[in-house]
């Protein structure tokens, strides 16, 4: 199944794109998606420990089970204000 992955802030520079599509297996977790993304965008790996992950508009952890059509967002620590 397919999910869209959005990148924000300097993650866009690391990946060279603002949005990517990934084909993942049924019942794949965010952790699985992240492994695919690290293979495709190796520069993301350096940020692994400070990557925030959202599905839709809610934060989710790496054990979250993805569903068809999910919109995943990856970004560095937030800095509003």
């Amino acid at each position, binding site marked *: 199944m397919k999910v869209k992955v*959005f990148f*924000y*802030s*300097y993650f866009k520079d690391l990946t060279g794109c603002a949005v990517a599509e990934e084909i993942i297996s049924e019942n794949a977790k965010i952790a699985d998606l992240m492994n695919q993304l690290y293979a495709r965008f190796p520069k993301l790996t350096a940020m692994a420990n400070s990557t*925030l992950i*959202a599905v*839709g*508009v*809610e*934060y989710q952890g790496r054990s979250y089970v993805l569903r068809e059509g999910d919109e995943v*967002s990856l*970004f*560095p620590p*937030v*800095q*509003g*204000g």
Partner: protein
Amino acid sequence: MKRELTITSGPLDEAALALGRERSTKAGAVIVFLGVVRDEENSVPISILEYEAFEGMARHQFTKIFDQVETRWPIESIRLIHRIGAVGTGEASLWVEVMAPHRGEAFAACQFTIDEMKRVVPIWKKPVPVAS
């Protein structure tokens, strides 16, 4: 609790916001907080900060913060404006107004809102160095 959330690439007109405040005889305390862009970021002189937001999620996360504020304190009103795009040094990127019966809860709610924003609201800033 009244709420007003604005995420905008326009400027902040503080005087107009003060004049536009709904008068209340229940709110004994009004706090206005302005976050202003300083002339350096991590010790590097800058001329501008470029703010970027994941706007849909930012709105949702602000709403959740306001829900928590409403649960914790008897707040009359909260209005919050965050600018996105280029904000020059000396200009405000953030404006928060809290109205409450007493000052203790107004200060607590205002600080909580800003602290939580800095923890969960997806907004980022990119410094534009003076030289560039």
